[in-house]
């Protein structure tokens, strides 16, 4: 096929967002803003206990309350479910996958497990009536700690399984034990990465409408309308073609809305029963129990190295909390990092083991980075630990071990297509003024200042752009990782793009228009991007895992090529030249050597529509679709540094500077890329300094609201310094992803900085988040 020769007007520029026009005016279509006549409101009753037998559910008082339409226990609704809430990734053959229904029937297994539902004419009436539902519980033993849950005699989450062990998954390459035995230096460290609550500012919500012939329309604050439609047919027994899922404007997800939730199935089932639209919105404290959490994993990480600092082996053993049930991707989250436990380093012997563990807690699942922040944290912390052991500079240790040539096949078996870790690090050092920081640090130490400073590094790579379908099949993921685009050139020259991605803040309406505008030679304002409604976007695999650009964007690219190819055929036919005799630039086909003989692509679109003079056998219209299945994952990487100031008397720690240099391939919209980096690093910084979802021993959530689970404000943070280097990905657009890189890199940079600030005192480790008390305690422990 002939290739497009466009000048590229929009890709690479910071086009301002199309999304802003409505969002800035308060015209967003968030689910909570949508209303249908006759809507009734759903409220759930949730177990206050982490583990309890449900002995009885008395709905009488609730049913008699003012405004109440109906109330149901879990037992009342068992016939509504054809299948349980799905888990799409049974990671091993012998994985334990207990059934999981939208309401618990006999046993509640975590604090927040839904046990009954009431539906009323107003939100307030539903909430009042929910308080009247009497549930008799018999409390049972429960456990929240991921390691203690594996101990003999620990209370079981699912009795019939006889264990809390969900699965054991391994990846081994080379001979790690031999490398450890032969090593000059072996460093082993243990890390606990606490539970994080994704806390998108929009709580989850649904509005479900079911017609008399079971035609379903479900509006949901979801990242995954296509996946949700597919899953609902399994849960409800309604055929997929009768289900329409609409993700309207969605207020952030970060993975927490990449799921199939009880309330989505419940709202549809109840709308079906009652013949009225059913609406539900989480309260925030409810969200903390009812929406998935991230992380909660204990690692033991080992590096084997020569005395010169060449790392010869990496071994990781991790115990990963599943929570009480397996939600959509729960067991697979750790695995998403399984192939990058060597990070940007060349490490020939490789072993990772994950043990999934049930605990009586809210299920875990994808939270920004999903498996890769966990891997990067343990790697980058241990790099510093190894540097200390060897008496080496931590920056030089990293540089020494970097992969230097690309493509590079890692010991784990996957191949990094492109990258330049040294260039990222060099650029970082240029921006950082490390000498200045070290000088300041030395002066403060000499004076014995209460406030000390430290600098910490995190050099990373990550694998995203989920994902090549063949590999997904090989690792037992239930479906594929392709995505889809349809481009429709309207007769008078405007362009409609239908994408299978489902943005919820990622600006696809703008950036997809940029890509298509360049490929077709039209203006960004001529293009409208449609997404999120399965009646409009029939095919797609939605948005998560930094996949939308690398996969969805490539589908756009290929659909664009088909459009241009068809237009070329039309123009060649009408100008009576061979297709190869035409040049295509700036949206116009012109005859080589006779540039006055030309036709614009919009004119070709009209010709396609009028169909007066098309080549024999050509179908009218100028609309093309492409579905793209990536051949490889996508491999962003980079180098970050954090500078912190620690008040050694109070432990109070402030981030003073954060510098990020990232390689995200060919940049489509620099301003939007920076915005993704800002938001991503902020979540990693927050994990390092502020956020921790804590349970007591038994599984009672202690951080129950946004007053105790600490999402930082602008007052806690500095402005950031960001830059990029660019190595093109192995795809025609050269694009990688950027949505999660910040969160993957940031937490270890901050913790490494705190350790660096206190290294002269002998501190070598701080538990995340580095609260003032933890920092102060670490100082006290080495003082005594």
């Amino acid at each position, binding site marked *: 096929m002939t290739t497009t020769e466009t000048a590229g007007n929009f890709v690479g520029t910071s086009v301002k967002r199309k999304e802003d026009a409505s969002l*800035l005016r*308060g015209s967003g279509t968030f689910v909570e803003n949508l209303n249908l006549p006759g809507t009734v409101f759903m409220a759930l009753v949730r177990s206050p206990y982490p583990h309890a037998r449900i002995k009885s559910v008395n709905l009488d008082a609730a049913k008699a309350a003012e405004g109440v339409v109906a109330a149901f226990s879990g037992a009342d609704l068992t016939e509504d479910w054809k299948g349980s809430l799905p888990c799409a990734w049974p990671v091993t053959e012998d994985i334990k996958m207990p059934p999981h229904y939208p309401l618990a029937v006999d046993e509640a297994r975590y604090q927040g497990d839904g046990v009954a539902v009431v539906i009323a004419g107003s939100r307030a009436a539903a909430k009042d009536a929910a308080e009247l539902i009497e549930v008799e519980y018999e409390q049972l033993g429960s456990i929240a700690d991921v390691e203690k849950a594996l101990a003999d005699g620990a209370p079981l989450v699912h009795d019939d399984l006889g264990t809390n062990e969900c699965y054991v998954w391994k990846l081994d390459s080379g001979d790690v034990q031999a490398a450890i035995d032969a090593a000059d230096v072996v460093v082993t460290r243990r890390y606990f990465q606490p539970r994080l609550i994704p806390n998108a500012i*929009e709580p989850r919500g649904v509005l479900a409408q079911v017609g008399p012939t079971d035609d379903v329309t479900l509006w949901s604050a979801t990242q995954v309308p296509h996946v949700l439609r597919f899953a609902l047919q399994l849960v409800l027994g309604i055929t997929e073609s009768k289900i329409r899922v609409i993700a309207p404007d*969605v207020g952030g997800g970060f993975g927490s809305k990449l799921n199939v939730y009880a309330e989505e199935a419940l709202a549809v089932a109840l709308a079906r029963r009652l013949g009225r639209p059913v609406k539900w919105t989480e309260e*925030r404290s409810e969200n903390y129990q009812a929406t998935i959490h991230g992380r909660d994993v204990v690692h033991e990480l080992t590096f084997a190295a020569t005395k010169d600092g060449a790392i010869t082996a990496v071994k990781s053993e991790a115990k990963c909390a599943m929570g009480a049930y397996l939600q959509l991707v729960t067991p697979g989250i750790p695995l998403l990092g399984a192939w990058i436990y060597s990070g940007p380093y060349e490490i020939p012997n490789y072993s990772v083991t994950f043990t999934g563990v049930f605990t009586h807690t809210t299920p875990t699942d994808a939270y920004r980075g999903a498996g890769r922040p966990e891997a990067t944290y343990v790697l980058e912390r241990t790099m510093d630990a190894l540097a200390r052991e060897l008496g080496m500079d931590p920056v030089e240790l990293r540089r020494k071990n970097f992969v230097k040539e690309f493509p590079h096949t890692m010991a784990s078996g996957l191949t990094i297509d492109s990258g330049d870790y040294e260039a990222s690090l060099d650029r970082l050092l240029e921006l950082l003024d490390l000498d200045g920081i070290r000088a300041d640090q030395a002066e403060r130490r000499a004076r014995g200042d209460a406030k000390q400073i430290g600098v910490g590094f995190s050099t990373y790579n990550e694998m995203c752009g989920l994902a090549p379908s063949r590999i997904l099949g090989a690792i037992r993921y239930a479906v594929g990782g392709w995505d889809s685009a349809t481009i429709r050139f309207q007769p008078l020259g405007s362009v409609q793009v239908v994408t299978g991605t489902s943005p919820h803040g990622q600006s696809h309406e703008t950036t997809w228009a940029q890509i298509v505008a360049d490929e077709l030679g039209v203006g960004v304002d001529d293009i409208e991007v449609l997404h999120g409604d399965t009646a409009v976007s029939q095919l797609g695999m939605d948005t998560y895992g930094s996949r939308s650009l690398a996969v969805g964007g490539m589908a756009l690219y290929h659909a664009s090529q088909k459009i241009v190819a068809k237009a070329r055929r039309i123009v060649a036919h009408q100008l009576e030249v061979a297709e190869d005799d035409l040049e295509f630039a700036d949206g116009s086909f012109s005859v080589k050597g006779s540039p006055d003989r030309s036709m614009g692509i919009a004119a070709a679109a009209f010709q396609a529509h009028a169909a007066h003079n098309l080549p024999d056998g050509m179908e009218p219209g100028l609309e093309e679709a492409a579905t793209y299945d990536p051949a490889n994952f996508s491999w962003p990487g980079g180098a970050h540094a954090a500078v912190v100031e620690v008040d050694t008397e109070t432990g109070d720690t402030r981030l003073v500077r954060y510098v990020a240099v990232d390689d995200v391939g060919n940049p489509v919209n620099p301003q939007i890329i920076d915005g993704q980096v800002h938001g991503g690093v902020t979540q990693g910084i927050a994990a390092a300094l502020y956020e921790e979802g804590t349970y007591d021993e038994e599984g009672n959530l202690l951080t129950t609201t946004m007053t105790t689970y600490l999402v930082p404000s602008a007052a806690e943070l500095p402005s950031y310094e960001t830059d990029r280097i660019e190595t093109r990905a192995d795809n025609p657009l050269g694009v990688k992803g950027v949505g999660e890189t910040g969160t993957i890199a940031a937490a270890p940079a901050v913790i490494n900085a705190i350790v660096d600030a206190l290294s002269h005192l002998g501190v070598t480790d701080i538990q995340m988040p580095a609260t003032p008390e933890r920092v102060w305690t670490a100082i006290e422990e080495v003082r005594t």
Partner: protein
Amino acid sequence: MRHVTLSANGVRHELEVEPRELLVYVLRDRLELTGTNVGCDTSSCGSCTVLVNGEAVKSCTMLGVQADGMEITTIEGLATNGHLHPVQQAFHDHHALQCGYCTPGMVLAAVSLIDSGEAVDEAAIREGLEGNLCRCTGYHNIVKAVAAAAGVS
């Protein structure tokens, strides 16, 4: 039910509300001004911020009946004749929103901060936005936008 008279974006309304109805729900459900969002239940996130008699207030922490006789400005009332308010324009220019859910509250908090004369430098802006949480942007561009709208660097 109580009778409440309030002005929202310059339009006078006479309403019957239950005393326990929060102002944010009066605005959203009764006046169908759905631009103001609810993000939490502990007055922590500021998404519900509106202007009450010109000052930023968390409308989830006020009863509708407390707003009797008051002038409320919501996000829908900021643009005039289709032209974005300078703060809205600055948010657009500086990419200070991603999902947009915290944005109405953030914009109105910024308007109030600038009007109070306290948006004098980056530190003061960051401090002044302490009551508004965003999960998408990391605040970097929000602070830039507010500084630009306030005419400070």
